[in-house]
């Protein structure tokens, strides 16, 4: 090929590559524009304060009610329950893999956790229906086990791989000298782990938890299948709940295009977007802090 042709091809592709970079910006911009435009349309009909603090979600009633507080509370208790299960298990497993497991055991455990991460959420949701639900029903003497506790258990399983992987990286990155100093003054391995390694890895572990929270808040299929979806204000872990994601998934298929109800679902999506964004940004902040701290 002639030299000139090669040079122009070089320039053409430079611009093609650059254009795909802008596609990413366009994608995020498009998502934001969609959320803002539709939420704005919704807030022309319903006051933002009524939307956030309203205690009743009943868009199909004679007098439609668009209060999303029950949905926020549902998402919160399911996520909170999931974290109560997932945080100790996740940190324990991460510490075991990083500090105690032999290289051979590591080679078994890491793919196991990758396998757990690879299972599609709809399969975990199905397990919630056929295994966890009957289990909860018989243990707690309920007619069925489709409730917040079920959702929390499943979300814990979904969030665990994220938490374990990030926390394990953090524990692994703690400098060896820290541990040696601790052993040097006579501390046991356990004392070192609790008082030196985990505090040193804390920002990374917090990041792991925040990323797990972000994952749990945004998860749709498992909670849709396993929590019963009654849009009432839940009072305990044994109540059926309808999370924000499940509400969008159920109602979007039924609403007429561009009605108040339709816009309301986008408004929920906006709140969801902000909540997951907050969790992920916090996670990222702690990861960066951890990296900076150990880069020195």
């Amino acid at each position, binding site marked *: 090929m002639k030299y000139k042709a090669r*040079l122009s*091809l*070089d320039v053409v*592709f430079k611009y093609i*590559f*650059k254009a*795909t*970079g*802008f*596609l*990413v*910006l366009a*994608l*995020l911009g498009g*998502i934001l524009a*969609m*959320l803002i435009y539709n939420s704005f349309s919704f807030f022309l009909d319903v006051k933002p304060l009524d939307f956030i603090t309203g205690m009743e979600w009943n868009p199909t009633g004679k007098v439609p009610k668009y209060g999303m507080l029950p949905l926020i509370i549902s998402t919160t208790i399911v996520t909170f329950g999931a974290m109560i299960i997932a945080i100790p*298990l996740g940190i*324990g497993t991460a510490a*075991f*893999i990083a500090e*105690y497991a032999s290289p051979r055991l590591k080679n078994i*455990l890491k793919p*196991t956790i*990758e*396998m*757990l991460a*690879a*299972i*599609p*959420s*709809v*399969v975990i*949701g*199905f*397990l919630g*229906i*056929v295994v966890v639900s009957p289990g909860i029903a018989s243990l707690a003497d309920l007619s069925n086990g489709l409730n917040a506790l079920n959702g929390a258990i499943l979300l814990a*399983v979904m969030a*665990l791989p994220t938490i374990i992987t990030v926390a394990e990286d953090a524990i692994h990155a703690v400098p060896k000298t820290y541990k040696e100093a601790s052993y040097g003054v006579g501390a*046991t391995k*356990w004392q070192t782990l609790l008082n030196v390694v985990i505090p040193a890895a804390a920002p990374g572990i917090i990041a792991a938890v925040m990323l797990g929270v972000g994952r749990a*808040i*945004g998860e*749709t*299929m498992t909670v*849709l*299948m396993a929590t019963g979806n009654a849009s009432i204000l839940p009072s305990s872990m044994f109540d059926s709940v309808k999370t924000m*994601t499940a509400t*969008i*998934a159920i109602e*979007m*298929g039924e609403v007429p295009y561009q009605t108040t109800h339709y816009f309301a*679902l*986008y408004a929920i*999506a906006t709140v969801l*977007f902000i909540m*997951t964004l907050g*969790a*992920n940004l916090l996670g990222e902040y702690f990861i960066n802090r951890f990296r900076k701290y150990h880069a020195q």
Partner: protein
Amino acid sequence: MRNKTFRFSSIIEWGTLLISTLLVCFFLVVVLWEIISKGSSVLSWDFVTQVPSEGMTKGGIITPIIGTVLLTLITSIFAIPFGVCCAIYLHEYAEDNWLTRTIRASIRNLSGVPSIIYGLFGLALFVQALQFGTSLVAAGLTLGLLSLPYIITTTEEALMRIPNSTREAALAVGATKFETIKDVVLPSAMSGILTGVVLTLSRAAGETAPILFTGAAFYINGTSGFINQEFMALPYHLYMLSTQHQSIEEVRPIAYGTALVLIIVVFLLNLTAFCIRYKYRKNEN
């Protein structure tokens, strides 16, 4: 004596961590055991080659299998070229300025956006604004957008592993930058890129929320195959059979079979990625 109690307590401490690890593994065992033990009795050649019949209480699941395969194909046709090109731009061309930092921040942000929001975006953009209707192509493109940030991130990691000296050698013998990338960088990064792509596709194949409103159908006649029509997909089929079907108990065996096939598909894709990575590492050594 003192030494003995010391050992005993360290066993308890070690045991606590071991138990949490075993519990995590136990979750995986429960999932696999339940699906495999109850799904394998349904699994047969007929099950994976026949269309659903009699209100999906009989017959096989070939229609959702074909739907998922076509859906993943559309996803990859869209996401792989765009994702790889964007990663090339970020790693090979972009300078460290505000624009690049914004693009990188957007990618991190996009990978944290819940999949249901991608579903809404696909509905608003492909189904409504671009008038594709609820169709295979709308759902495929939605999943493509969802996959984009993962493909970019994994491709960039693969590009990072190629030493700069390789690029400099190509440039020094007179290759243009594009030729260097096309003939030197991409071939040597290929296995890393492929691993990331296959893992991302396995994830996309199992996604349900983004295709809920963009084209997945409860039931279609015959086998799907037209990109402007609705389709059946394995994950959506499982969701429908386990929650929305009129006689849930009756179709439960088929639901188990569907879950097993879905898991097999996802694990086979993961295994492929694992093999590519393994082969690559072996060649490197």
